[in-house]
C-alpha cells in the first residue's frame, strides 16, 4: 500500500453525532444509572476495612507463612532434615543441609537434623506442598501473611525464625464463623 493512502483506501469510523434525544440520554440517563448504584451503597454503610488497624480473620486452612515445630515434651525439633519438603517444593525455595546428631549435641529426634533450613519467602507460592510432604509434621503453614520487608534477603527465613513463636498478628476465624 502506498503512503499516504488514498481516501478510497481509508475506512472512517465516526462517533454518533451529539445532539438529539440520543445525546440527551447519553449525557444524563447513563450517568444517573451509575449514580443509582452509588447511592444504594451509601446507605448500606461502610465496607472498608481499615487495614492495618483492622484485619480480616483468616480461615483455619489459610496457607500463610510457614512454621517449624518442636516436640512439646522434649523440646527437640521435629524436623530431621530429610529434604522431602525441598523435593516437593515447586518453587524450589527451600534449602536444607542436614547434619548428624550426637549424644552430646542432640537437636532432633532422629539420626539427622537440619543444620540449615531456609525458605525464600519471596519465591514461595504458598502452595502448601511442603507441609504435605513432611513425614513428621515438622513444617506447617501458619496464618501469618504480613511478611513485607525492605530487602529481598530479609525474606529468606532461617530455621530460627521459622521455629520462633510467631507474633500473633493475624486473627483466626472461629469455628462456623
Amino acid at each position, binding site marked *: 500500500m502506498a503512503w499516504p493512502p488514498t481516501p478510497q483506501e481509508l475506512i472512517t469510523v465516526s462517533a454518533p453525532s451529539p445532539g438529539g434525544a440520543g445525546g440527551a440520554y447519553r449525557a444524563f440517563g447513563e450517568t444517573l444509572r451509575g449514580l443509582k448504584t452509588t447511592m444504594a451503597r451509601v446507605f448500606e454503610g461502610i465496607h472498608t476495612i481499615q487495614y492495618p488497624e483492622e484485619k480480616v480473620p483468616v480461615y483455619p486452612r489459610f496457607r500463610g507463612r510457614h512454621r517449624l515445630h518442636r516436640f512439646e515434651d522434649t523440646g527437640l525439633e521435629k524436623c*530431621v*532434615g*530429610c529434604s522431602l519438603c*525441598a523435593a516437593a517444593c515447586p518453587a524450589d525455595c527451600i534449602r*536444607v543441609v542436614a547434619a548428624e546428631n550426637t549424644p552430646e549435641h542432640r537437636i532432633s529426634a532422629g*539420626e539427622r537434623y537440619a543444620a540449615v533450613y531456609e525458605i525464600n519467602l519471596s519465591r514461595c507460592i504458598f502452595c502448601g506442598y511442603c507441609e504435605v510432604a513432611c513425614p513428621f509434621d515438622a513444617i506447617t503453614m501458619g496464618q501469618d501473611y504480613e511478611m513485607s520487608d525492605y530487602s529481598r534477603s530479609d525474606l529468606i527465613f532461617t530455621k530460627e525464625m521459622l521455629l520462633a513463636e510467631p507474633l500473633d498478628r493475624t486473627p483466626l476465624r472461629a469455628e462456623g464463623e
Partner: protein
Amino acid sequence: MPRPEIHMITFTVDGREVRAPENAMLVDAAKLGDVEIPVFCYEPKLGQPVGACRMCLVEIEGIPKLQTGCSTPVKDGMVVITQSERVKEAQEAIVEFLLVNHPLDCPVCDKGGECPLQDISFGWGGGRSRFIEPKRHFEKPLALSPLIAIDRERCILCYRCVRFSQEISEDYQLILAERSADTYVSTFDGHPYVAPFSGNIIELCPVGALTSQPYRFRARPWDIEGAGSVCTLCPAQCNVELTVRDERVLRVLARQHPGVDDGWLCDKGRFAYQSVHVDERITRPMVREGGELRPVSWERALDEAAGALGRAGAQSAVLAGGGATNEEGYLLQRLAREAVGTPHVDSRAGGGPGRELAAALGAPALQATVPDLEHAHAVLVLETEPVDDMPIVDLRIRKGVRRNRVRLAVATPRPSSLDRNADVSVRYAPGCGEAFVAALSAMLGGEGKNVDELASSAGTTVEALRGVTGVLRGVEVGEGATGSDEAGPRDIVILWGERLTQGRRGAAAARGLLNVAARLRLGGREGAGLLEVPVAANGRGLREAGVLHDAGPGLSEPPHGEMAAIDGLELPDGLARGDLTTLLLWDAEVDAATLAAAGTVIAHAAFLTDALRAHATVVLPAESYAEKEGTVTHPDGRVQRLRPAIGRQGGVRPGWQVLADLMARVGATQDPADPGAGDPRVLTGPMASRQLFEAVPVYAGLTLEELGGRGVRWPAREQAAAWPRADAGPFGLEVPPGPVKANGDLRLGTFRSIWAGPEVGHSPALRFLVPKPRVEMAPADAQRRNVTQGDHVTVGHNGAALHATVVLRDAVPRGTVFVETDALRAGPVDVRKAPPRAGPPAPDPAEAPS
C-alpha cells in the same frame, strides 16, 4: 581364555518377540525387549547370580513353578510372562516379606531418593503390611569402618557386599554372621573393614544399610548434580561421576566403563575428592619474598616465573608428572622448546629408555587392552604391584583368574598381593628386573646355557623361571618348558611396571622386555600384548604429548636435533654441576636435595610440601582433577576426556591458561620488537586440545565430541599407522650387572603404596590410612638383627638413613628389606634398632609427603 562367541536366539517375553544372546540371564534379556524385572541381589559385576532375594520371580511356560529371572539363562523359544496375576502376587509377597524387618526410616536414611527398595516397593509392592509384631533391632548407626557406616536393620541380606569382599576384591573380610532371621553382615571378629576397595560396597548395597561416612547426610539426590569425569590419581584413570552440591564435590561414584574400570573404584579414588576442598590447598600464586612464600597476584607471579625462565634460557629444565593433562604436557614442551629455548624437558623423573625403544614398547601392534587381562590365556605381572600402582587392574586380574581361569604368573621383587592367585610367583632381587627379563628371554629362546647365569644374576632360580615360561606357554608347571611353543602362539598379556625401564640401565631392560614379547609372538595379536603401568597417572599421555627429553609430540624426532638434553634422571646432577639453574616443576615431585640445588624453582602444585616451602621461588596453584578440562591417555592408549565438575577454587587458573600466559610473556621478553611473538594462540581449553590433536600424528582427527564420555583407544584407529616405526628386536642383550653385593647387609627395595600421594594425606577421611614409615623384612633377618615386629629402627647406609617401624612378612625373601620411600636409592642397607628418640616424634607423613 579367549572371549566366548555369542549366539543370538529369539524368545518371547510378555507376548513380545525379543532377540537376545543365548544364555544371557532372563533379567538382562528381557531388558532388550523393554521389560523390566525387578531385582535386588542380581548384579552381573559380581559374577554368578545367587538367587538370594527372589524379587525377580517370573513365569516360564512349561515350568510349573515361578522361576528366578536373574539366574535362569534364556533359551531359544522360551516364553516368559512377567505380568500375570501369579507373578504380581509373588512380587507383592516378596516386597512385603522384605519389609517385615525393614525399619523404613527413609527420612533419616541416606539412601532415600536413590533407593532400589523404595523404587521397587513403590512399583511392585502391594502397599500394605500385615506384620504387627516387633521388628528386629540392632544398634545403629555403627561404623563398619571409618569410611563406611552400617545400619543392620535396613539390610535385606542380598549378599552383595559379602560377595564383593569374597569374590571380587578377595579380601575375605565381610561375612554373614549367625543364621536365618538373626543373620547380619559383619567382619569375622568385628574389626573395621579396611581394604583398598571397600568403598565399592556402598554403591553395591541396594538399600541404605551401607552408607558412606564422608557423604553421610550431606545431600539428597535432588540437591545434587552428577558430573562425569576421569579420576587422575593413578594410571588406571577410572571413569567417575562426581556428585556436586553448591559447587563442592561431595562424593565420587563409578561411571561403569568395561574397557577401563569395570565399574569399580578404589578407596583412594572414591574418597580423596576431599582434598579438593581443604584449606591446605594452594589457591593463590605465591612468590618468595624475604625468605618466605607470600601470596601475590597472578600477574606478579607469572612475570617472575617468565622472567626467571627467560633469563635462564637453555639452563632451565622442565619436569612434568602426576595427573597433568596431555594439553598441559603439549603446551609445556612448547613453552620449553619454543619460548624458553631449552631442550631439557621430561616427564620421567626416573629416566627411561630412549625414543626408539619407547616407540617400540608403545607400538600399537604390541598394546594389550585392559579387558584383555581377563580373557588372555596367561598374564604375567612384571615389576609392579597392581594394587599399589594401578589398583583397579588388580580386580581385573583377579576376575580373569577366578572366572576365566586365566593362568597368572607374578614376577616381582616384593611379595605381591596376587601371589595367592598366581600359578607361579617368582621373586628376584630388587633392581634386577633387567637381569630377570634377560633370563626370561633366554629361557624362551631356548638358550639353556645362558639361563643359569642370568637367573643367578637376577637373584632367582632356573626352576622359578621355568615355572613362569610354563605358565606363559600353557605347559604344566614342572614339565620341561624350555622348548619352542608347540601349541602355537597364545594370548599373553604382560603387565609391566615402568619401574623396570627406569634408571641408567632402563634401555637394556626395555630391550629384554621386547625380546620376551617377540619370543612370545605378542606383536600384532588381538588379545595379547604389553600393558604398561606408568609411574605418573598420565605418564603415557605426557610422553605422547612430547614431554620427553629426546622426543617431540607423538614421539617424533625432537625439534632440537643434536642438542643433548638432560633427562629426568640426570636432573639432580645437571643442577649440581650448574648446567641447569632453573627448574619448572609441573605437578611433579622431586626430593628436597634436588630443589635445594636449583637456583630458581617454579612449582605448579596443589599442595605445599616441606621441600617446596623451603626451596620454591614461585608457586603456581594447580587445579584438582575435578576442575580440569582436557584429555589424558590411559596406559592402553585410550584417550579420555576430563570435564570440569566445579568452578576453580580461589584464584586457581586453568593449566593451559597459565602455560599460554607464560609462553606469551617469555616470548615477549625474548623479542621485544614483536610483543606477540610467543603467543601460543590458546584462548580456551578446547583450543589447546585441538592444537594437541593436530600436533600428535596418532591423535590426528580426534575431537572432544568423539572422545565423549567413553574415550577412544588410539591404537585401534587408522591414524595409529603414523606411530614412528621402531626396531622391536629381538636384540642381542648385554650382560646385566648382578644384584648388589650386600656383604652381610640387606638389599633395599622400595615401593609406593596406594595410600601415598598428597591427595590421600590431605583428605580428612583417608588420613588414617596414610602409612607410617615401615620396613618390611623377613622374620629370619629380623631375628639376626635382634629386632621384632613394631620396633623402631633406622634403615640406611653411610649416613643416609630413615626411621621406620618393623613389619615382619614371611613372604619377604631373606636378605632383602622393603621400604616405602623415594628418598633412599637401591643398595645395601643396614637395619638397626633406633636409639630411644629424644625430641619431637617424626613428623606425621600426612604433613610431609616425600
